[in-house]
Structure formats: C-alpha cells, structure tokens
C-alpha cells in the first residue's frame, strides 16, 4: 500500500510539467488522492475511538433504560433505573461524599500546585532537585500509593501516629473514622497530583514575559501587587485548564486509590459516587442501574464544567490583554 501511494504521488507531481494541458483533471485527482490518504491515515484511530469511546458513551445512556440481569438478558424498564436512583439513599450519600471530596480537593490542589509552581520558578539554589522531588509521587501508581499510605497511616504501627505520639499527641485512627478517612484520601491525592499541576503552572508562569515583572519592579510593586496585577491575570488560561482538569478528574477518578486505601469504608465514608457505581455494576451485576447513575454523574460533570467555563470565561484574557 505504501509504495503504491508513493508511486502515485510521484506520478502526479511530475506529470503537470510534462502535460500542462490536462492539469485541471489532474489537480482534481491529486485532491482526491489526498482525501484517500487522509482517510487511510485516520482510519485506525477513528475506528478505535468510535468502538471504544463513542459507542460505549452512547451505549451507557441507552443501557440506563434497561434492566440487565445476569449475562446478556435486557429488559426495557424506561425510567425505572432513574426512579430507583432517586430513592436510593446510598447513592445520594455517595453523591454527597463526592461533593465534599471535590469541593475540598480541587481548591486545595489548585492552591498547593500554584504555590509550588511559584516557588520552583524562583532561581533558588538546587531548584531542579526540588522540582524532581515534588513531581516524584506522580509517577507511582495509585495502587502502590494506596498500599504505601495504608502502611504509613496504620493506627498502631504507622509512622504518622508514631510521629504524633513522639510529639506528645494521641495517635488518630486515620482510616477508621469516616470523615478522617475522606480527609486522608484527599491529602494523599494532593500529595500525588501536586507535582503534575505544579509543572503545568510552571509552564504557564514561564510564558509570562519578563518585561512585565521588570516594569513592576521599576514601579516599586511588592510581591503581592505583582502577583495580583500581573501573574494572576496572565495565568488565566493555565488556571482554567488546571481547574477543569482537576475537577473532571476528581468527579470521575480516584477509583484505584479508594479500592486499595479504604475500599469505600469505613461505614461508606469514602464511597465516592464512582466507587458506588462500580460496586453496583461489577459487584452486583446491576449494569443498567449503574449506567443510569453513571449517566447522571456525567450530566453533573458537564454542568460543573460549564459553570467553570463561564466563571473563568474559558480561560480567555479579558482585561485588554
């Protein structure tokens, strides 16, 4: 296929010089050849995305109107799954927990990452080492992260409680109380992700022209004024990106960590919506019901993204930049 295409290409591009008369027809065929090439180049990915992303997405919505029992028997029940969802206290508990999780995680992660980005942008001695160190947790899988923190947070033998006792406090049952466990999941997530968003903020910060800072310095602006009038407005596209990405990831991600670190417990205290949906689908075979809840979650996600988009004006500059 490749050599044919190459030869065909050669023939067309050489031909006009030899026979300018019929160039009109040839241009058309070259155009069509380009269409054909584009089709072949795009075919594998377009097909793959269709089968493994687009179709499942549509299927997910369709599935939510069915009762799926056992292996492969589908029964249309209309809005039955959605009605069941409305009356399922466990689902609404999981939505509430997801809400708390997102509302705490996203701002904390945003501020920590921005702070780190500002910090490692400075010309400090050994700044490369700090960047490496702060990014390091990101390359470790959430499964290993979960195992590791379970070890560190162990009530009796964990290092965290040992340190607290050494400092004169009582140790806490970190993963033993619902609210503390959710706090731990959030803290661990910040620890994992801060380096990633730090790098994105760093890239955004490095895009801001130095002249602005030099001008601010000449005007005698302090660090806070400089940040407020230069850094923050010019960082808007990056901030938007980070906010959107981290929110979407928070609403639908973290499944691996929950599995290993808390398994949804204690007392469902860390049972995020995505975890509850997973349990219903793969624990109880309730594919239809789980799809209804999944579709609802996507709806929430889209709505929240739209709010973020509106709130940040899509990350565009609007102060005459």
């Amino acid at each position, binding site marked *: 296929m490749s050599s044919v295409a190459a030869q065909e290409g050669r023939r067309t591009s050489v031909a006009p010089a030899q026979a300018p008369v019929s160039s009109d027809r040839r241009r058309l065929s070259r155009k069509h050849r380009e269409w054909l090439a584009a089709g072949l180049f795009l075919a594998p990915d377009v097909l793959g995305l269709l089968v493994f992303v687009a179709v499942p997405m549509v299927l997910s919505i369709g599935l939510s109107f069915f009762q799926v029992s056992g292996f492969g028997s589908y029964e249309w029940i209309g809005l039955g799954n959605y009605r069941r969802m409305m009356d399922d206290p466990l689902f609404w508990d999981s939505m509430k927990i997801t809400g708390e999780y997102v509302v705490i995680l996203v701002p904390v992660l945003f501020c920590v990452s921005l702070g780190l980005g500002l910090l490692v942008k400075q010309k400090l001695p050994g700044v490369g080492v700090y960047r490496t160190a702060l990014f390091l947790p990101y390359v470790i*899988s959430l499964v290993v992260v979960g195992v590791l923190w379970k*070890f560190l947070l162990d009530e009796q033998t964990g290092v965290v409680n040992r340190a607290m006792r050494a400092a004169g406090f009582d140790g806490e049952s970190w993963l033993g109380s619902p609210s503390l466990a959710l706090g731990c999941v959030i803290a661990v997530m910040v620890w994992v992700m801060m380096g990633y968003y730090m790098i994105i903020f760093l890239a955004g910060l490095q895009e801001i022209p130095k002249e602005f800072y030099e001008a601010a310095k000449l005007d005698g602006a302090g660090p806070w004024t400089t940040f407020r009038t230069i850094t923050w407005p010019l960082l808007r596209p990056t901030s938007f990106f980070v906010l959107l990405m981290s929110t979407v990831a928070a609403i639908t991600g973290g499944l691996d960590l929950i599995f290993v670190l808390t398994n949804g417990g204690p007392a469902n205290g860390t049972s995020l919506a995505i975890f509850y949906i997973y349990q219903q689908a793969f624990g109880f075979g309730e594919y239809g019901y789980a799809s209804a809840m999944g579709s609802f979650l996507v709806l929430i996600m889209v709505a929240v993204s739209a709010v973020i988009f509106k709130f940040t004006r899509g990350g565009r500059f609007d102060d005459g930049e």
Partner: protein
Amino acid sequence: MASDAMAAQATPPAGRRRPTSRTGLTALAVVLSLISVFPVLWMVTSSFKTRATVTDGNLIPRDFTFDNFVYVFTEVPFARYLWNSFFISAVITVAALFFHSMAAYALARLRFPGREKLFGAIFATLLVTAPVVLIPLFLVARQLGLLDSYAGLIIPAIFNAFGIFLLRQFYLQLPKELEEAAIVDGCGHWRVYWNIVLPMSRPILSALAIFFFLANWNAFVWPLVATNDQSLTVVQLGIASFQTQYGSNWNYILAAATVAALPMLVLFFVFQRQIVESIKTSGLK
C-alpha cells in the same frame, strides 16, 4: 545592569529583603521536597526490613535483608505480573504512537472536507473519561470476545484523543518546507509521513512514549474488570490482591510495591526532561 541598579536604589527595602527571603524560600522548598519524597523513601527502605522490624518506625533498616524480594518472586508469580505489564504497556505504546501520529499528521497537514469537524469530534472524546464508560466498554469487550485476553487488555487502551491532540499541535508548528519539497520531488503522503514527519517528531514521540508507558504500567481499573485469568494478571492487580492476601505482612507487601514502582522511578529519573516537556505542552496549547 543599569536598570537593576536603579531598581535597587528605587526600592531599597526590597533589595535588602531579598537575601533573607531567598534563604527562607530555599528552606521551604527543601522541607516540601522532603515531605514529597519521604513516603516513597520509607517504602523502599522498609522493603529491606524483616517481618519483625518492618513496623519499628526507623527509616534505616537495622537488619538489612533481601528475603522479602526473594519471597515475592518465588512464592508469587511476580515475574509473570511484571512481564504482563511490560508487554501490554509496550505494545499499547508502540501502537498508540503509530496510529496517533498518522491521524495527527492527516489532521494537521492533509486537506480534506470536514477536517475541522472531525478534529472537533475527536477532541470531544477527551471529555469522556475512562471510568465513566467502564460498564459499556466492558459489555462491548465481552461482545467482541476480548475479555480475558491480551488483546482485551491492549486494544481498548490504545485509543485516546490526548495523544492525537498533542501530536497535531506539534505538527502544526513544524515548518512545511521540507514536506512540500518532498511532494514536489514526487513523494506520496505515506513516504512524506514515514521518511520526513516521523523522524522530525522524534522528541515528542519519545516524550509521549514515556507518558503512555507510565500510564499503562500504572493502570489498574481496566485490567481488574477485563481479566480473571491468573496468567494475565498485571503488576498493579498483583499488588492489590497481594495486599488483601497478606494483610499485615508489610515487609512482603512493601517489597512487592517497591518492585512495581521501581521501573517507573528509574524511567522518571532517566527521562525526566521528556516527561516534564510533554506535560508542559499538554497544559499550554
């Protein structure tokens, strides 16, 4: 230099404050870096401790031992898990780079009707995150007979608009002259792609390769759903089930976790620059 001197004159307090604030910031950076690295360090050193001392609260093991690693590789088919993860991640990475670069080249360079719309549609799939389509994906894979097979672990993981998007951005920035010259010389689109575009995109391809490999090595949820067969267990699944099986045998669990994390840590230290660059481009454009 002159303006620096002026600035220093104009704002003497800032000038005086600078050395101390720099020291303070450096100290802060050191402390935060230690907090960041410390848990990982603790995991690695604890994996060299014995069952009796693994929870003794010391960073440095007093009775250094390799037995945990020996145990992990002899009592559990951990080598098999590692191989599975390596094989799957490598195949996904190579296939994804190949397909994505082809698609991205077409989207960036070839002219055909509906190109922008198609790109918009591909871009929109970025919003469909994996956990959300897990259930229908599972049913599709079951229908296609992909469950419990390498194909089932590999094929669905290849297709991701993220790579297409990044590569397209990269190709849009490449100078066109070389490709145009090749076309004038009679090269077909395939030859232009294979002989010119691919070699020129080596930096971004290597960055993406590391990124894809890392993401797939660390993948857990899809393998959990798509496989039952022991011989297909990937390393992350292995760790998770190892943990439930061995409960408080932290020395074994941490040794297994260290073995699973080590390749990624090595990859990270060797290719740090590429990883950071690929993240930077993903955030900006």
